[in-house]
């Protein structure tokens, strides 16, 4: 028997890494993960580090799921998801965001928005394709691109421009290998949004360069001072866009892992192939809950959005009073203040804020290029907690400047 000497060195854990795929080995642990390790074990912390609603899923949604289990609804659903859920998603998007998809072959129910993005990338990428990602951005876009064999190319956005993507910045990063642009507006972590006028020149560049767009619109409902403009609703963009969304943020359903993708049948067909051979279908009970959320949960959703809006005003005003410049986020539930005047790096600031003031926020660098000099503060927490966090941060910053 021939033994591969390089790999086979008994039970030494180190050696096992030689079995791993290079693409996976090269992925760095996320900045959030590193910070999570720091936070755990600390007591009496007020956290502004949480990327999920502080509301529990509305009771009627949970109850619908429990009732379905009582009735024994525990089987597989069709690969693409329950037909009535796909129909409801289609109606919801048409009514709320003026984008129309055929529930038969243009809607795919996934295990969270994350799976939808993974499927989209795996369906599209050839090794070496370049994926354009405006940064700072949600932490998983770049690693998941690498796992799929693509090359992530960051496009830095800046606070001066309210972290919006511009056509010029996009154009400057395009090469013959560019294939996909990943958008996430409203943005995690900056809260930036894009208007119709903002999108128009972007759409032109997309068309001219024959790009495919993955538009992650998970925070669409959490748009405050304007109306969310769904990228596929822009002229000519519908058939070159994969719209990704889900129930986590607007319906307070993070743990259910319910998401969906909508696109041209060719794209959804390809994604469904991967989906059926990996997860088969999204969990049946989650689909029942999602259906209930869409049918009867819009009032609850509006109530939660109003509550986030109130806290948004509170945190932005509070941060500015402390002396941390904060552009006004127009969407999602994050404030992204600058900490540059303290002279500390984002990581130093966040670490000291945690140990000295017992407030957890996430260093902007966790979200890629352009994040240095900023921290992400989630305001999905109670008004009383926000008040206390701002007081603590105020005292902390006072010591520094």
């Amino acid at each position, binding site marked *: 028997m021939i033994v591969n000497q390089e790999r086979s060195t008994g039970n030494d854990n180190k050696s096992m890494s030689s079995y791993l795929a290079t693409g996976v080995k090269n992925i760095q642990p*996320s900045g*959030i993960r590193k*910070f*999570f390790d720091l*936070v*755990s074990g*600390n007591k009496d*912390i007020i*956290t502004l*580090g*949480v*990327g*999920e609603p*502080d509301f529990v899923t509305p009771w009627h949604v949970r109850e619908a799921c429990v009732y379905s289990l009582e009735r024994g609804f525990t089987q597989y659903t069709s690969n693409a998801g329950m037909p009535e859920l796909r129909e409801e998603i289609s109606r919801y998007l048409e009514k709320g965001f003026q984008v129309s998809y055929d529930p038969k072959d243009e809607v795919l129910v996934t295990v969270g928005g994350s799976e939808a993005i993974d499927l989209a990338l795996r369906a599209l990428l050839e090794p070496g394709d370049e994926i354009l990602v405006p940064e700072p951005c*949600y*932490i*998983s876009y770049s690693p998941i691109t690498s796992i799929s064999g693509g090359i992530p190319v960051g496009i830095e956005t800046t606070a001066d421009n309210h972290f919006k993507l511009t056509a010029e910045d996009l154009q400057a990063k395009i090469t013959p290998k560019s294939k996909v642009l990943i958008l996430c507006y409203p943005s*995690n972590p900056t809260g930036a949004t894009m208007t119709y006028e903002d999108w128009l020149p972007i759409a032109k560049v997309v068309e001219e360069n024959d790009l495919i767009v993955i538009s992650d619109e998970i925070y669409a409902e959490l748009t405050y001072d304007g109306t969310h403009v769904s990228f596929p609703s822009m002229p000519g963009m519908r058939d070159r866009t994969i719209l990704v969304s889900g129930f986590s943020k607007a319906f307070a359903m993070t743990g259910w892992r319910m998401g969906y993708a909508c696109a041209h049948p060719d794209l959804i067909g390809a994604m469904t192939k991967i989906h059926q051979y990996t997860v088969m279908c999204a969990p049946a009970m989650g689909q029942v809950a999602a259906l209930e959320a869409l049918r009867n949960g819009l009032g609850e959703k509006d109530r939660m959005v*109003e509550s986030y809006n*109130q*806290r948004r*005003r*509170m945190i932005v*005003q509070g941060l500015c009073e402390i002396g941390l410049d904060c552009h006004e986020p127009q969407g999602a539930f994050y404030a992204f203040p600058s900490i540059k005047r303290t002279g500390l790096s984002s990581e130093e600031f966040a670490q000291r804020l945690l140990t000295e003031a017992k407030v*957890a926020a*996430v260093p902007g660098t966790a979200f890629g290029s352009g994040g240095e000099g900023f921290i992400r503060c989630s305001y999905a927490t109670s*008004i*009383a907690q926000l*008040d206390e966090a701002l007081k603590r941060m105020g005292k902390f910053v006072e010591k520094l400047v």
Partner: protein
Amino acid sequence: MEELSPFKLKVLDLLKEDARRTPALLSTLLGASEEEVKEAIAELERDHVIVKYVTVVNWGKVEEEKVYAQIEVQITPERGRGFEGIAERIYLFPQVKSVYLMSGAYDLLVEVEGRSLREVANFVSEKLSPIDSVLSTKTNFILKKYKQDGIIFEENPEDKRLLISP
């Protein structure tokens, strides 16, 4: 009945959650000036929409013994005044905390608070039942309060989220 403006409704919602919120905080939360908030509150108080600011107490946490009962009362309405006069006679008793006119098997639902079962029983037998118009009473003692006025009496509702997440 006057229809309240959306702004006043938001003020009411925020004060209902926590009556201690200051006009300064409310103005921040609502994106309005402090004067607008103060004016809205003053009008709501003047119009008796905001009747009183009270504290919801979980008496179960305090050693002081309190007993609550809901009494279903059937009455004969009075000519010309219907149920109003008799309701007033009943709600003026200090131990009566609320009185509702009901549809269904009885007419008034009377909520009573006392220091002991005996005190509540005495109220029913000595004060309530002897009223001429009262035909019958049925007393239900409340054994435990789980939720009152939308507030759940749960011990330290826990935030189950991770401290940091994407």
